[in-house]
């Protein structure tokens, strides 16, 4: 089976073709450099993304405070995390870096505030 993807390692944006045998990467083509190969393999084995959103915050300047995950989380768990984050309410004052959700859904990533509010 072959999967195609765009490499994001640099602005070039190479179109990669990844040949798979089950879950195992057999080969990567279309890449210009080594980073493309590595990118493709990670994207197949364990695609992760940083999640940034907001958390409801009562009593601050704004009704929401921006947050991010301290580590990238598995791509396919983003909406699950969003659901939990959207159910969370915190009280002002909140400071940059403050942990608002500890180890979200066991991903080892914390959800931290990225601004004061």
């Amino acid at each position: 089976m072959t999967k195609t993807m765009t490499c994001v390692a640099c602005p070039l944006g190479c179109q990669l073709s990844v040949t798979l045998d089950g879950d195992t990467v057999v080969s990567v083509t279309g890449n210009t450099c080594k980073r493309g190969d590595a990118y493709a393999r990670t994207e197949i084995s364990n695609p992760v993304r940083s999640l940034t959103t907001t958390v409801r915050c009562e009593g601050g300047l704004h009704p929401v405070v921006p947050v991010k995950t301290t580590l990238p989380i598995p791509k396919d768990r983003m909406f699950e995390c969003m659901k939990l984050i959207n159910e969370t309410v915190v009280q002002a004052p909140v400071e940059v870096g403050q942990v608002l959700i500890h180890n979200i859904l066991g991903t080892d990533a914390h959800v931290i505030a990225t601004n004061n509010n």
Partner: protein
Amino acid sequence: MLNYDLVVIGGGPAGMAAALRARDFGIRDIIILERAETLGGILEQCIHTGFGLHYFGEELSGPEYAARFIELVEDQKIEYKVDTMVTDVTEDKVVTAVNKTDGLLKIQAKAVILAMGCRERPRGALSIAGTRPSGIMTAGTAQKYVNLDGYMPGKEIVILGSGDIGLIMARRMTLEGAHVKMVCELMPYSGGLTRNIVQCLDDFGIPLHLSTTVIATHGNGRLEGVTIAKVDDKLNPIPGTEEYVACDTLMLSVGLIPENELTKNIGIGMDRITNGAVVNEMRETDHEGIFACGNVLHVHDLVDYVTLEAQIAGEGAARYILGQKAAAAEYLTLTAGNGVRYTVPQRVNIRSEESVKVYFRVGRIYKNAKVVLTCAGKVVSSKKKVKLAPGEMENVIIPNEVLATLTVNDEIKIEVEE
């Protein structure tokens, strides 16, 4: 009338970095005037990450990037006023500002740094036909609603323009539960970063339609739909390709315009391509002691470059205030040659003792091309580039030893060779 050595107009990333650098050079008497309720500028609503990779070597969100500078401004006890709008700057550097607590402020400055940023191109400038319902907004306005005010500005969304703000908002709205139906891009290529196309569109299966535009809006209360159409190579809609797309929201990400009302009122010379002031290598305008930096000068793709540019302006302003300006400046206007849309700076003091880094943008996508710098007819450098794109700012350095050999009648040219 108040007196300050340096008045910085705008407390976003450019204004803060410029003020901090001027402080580094020993300027004590600085005030930053910011129109929003907090310092930080537009970064306050850019809650996604991707800021600071060049400058800090780590990936920060917009507010975090801003917070680092806000902290320094506080630490350095640089004076600032928020919720304060500058309404006028005169040639003699008298700055008029207004706010609720001080009322009308008149400040005599020795030097002024213009760091007002940019605004989004609105619908009106586009001549899209159709009705004027609610639900048509710029991506930045939507971003403010969702990220700062905590309200959903739409549910069924079409985005016109694949610049980075449009792409970022496609993901942001999707994460919050909206259905982003498509992103339409007038050009045959996206103006956004590849990474954003992958992580904001591909990840969520949002289609990107290139060479496609919105030609009409429909609905009498809230937006009910848009008509999209393919465009030809002259960017005109192709009859017969029209398609109706039901949606309640049209987000526009169709370009940024430097906010130069104050600059123009002073009478400062403008660059027709950048829509910003014409500046020299210290980012000084054609009015001595008035500097410009950040998105008010030209629209940047990365805030890291804004910071770097603002630091140059901050240094320039400090040197001007301290009277350290090179006595015998001789200026040469750079030539934007084949494929180069504009350069910043536009003018270079050839008596400058330091090498000058010139930023520029290309007019279209080039693959395997060369960036060539020619001074007085001699090729100074020729750098191979695998890819050049209008969305990504490039730079080239004019070495000081080359500058030293030039006269005002010579030409400095930057061009793309295929």
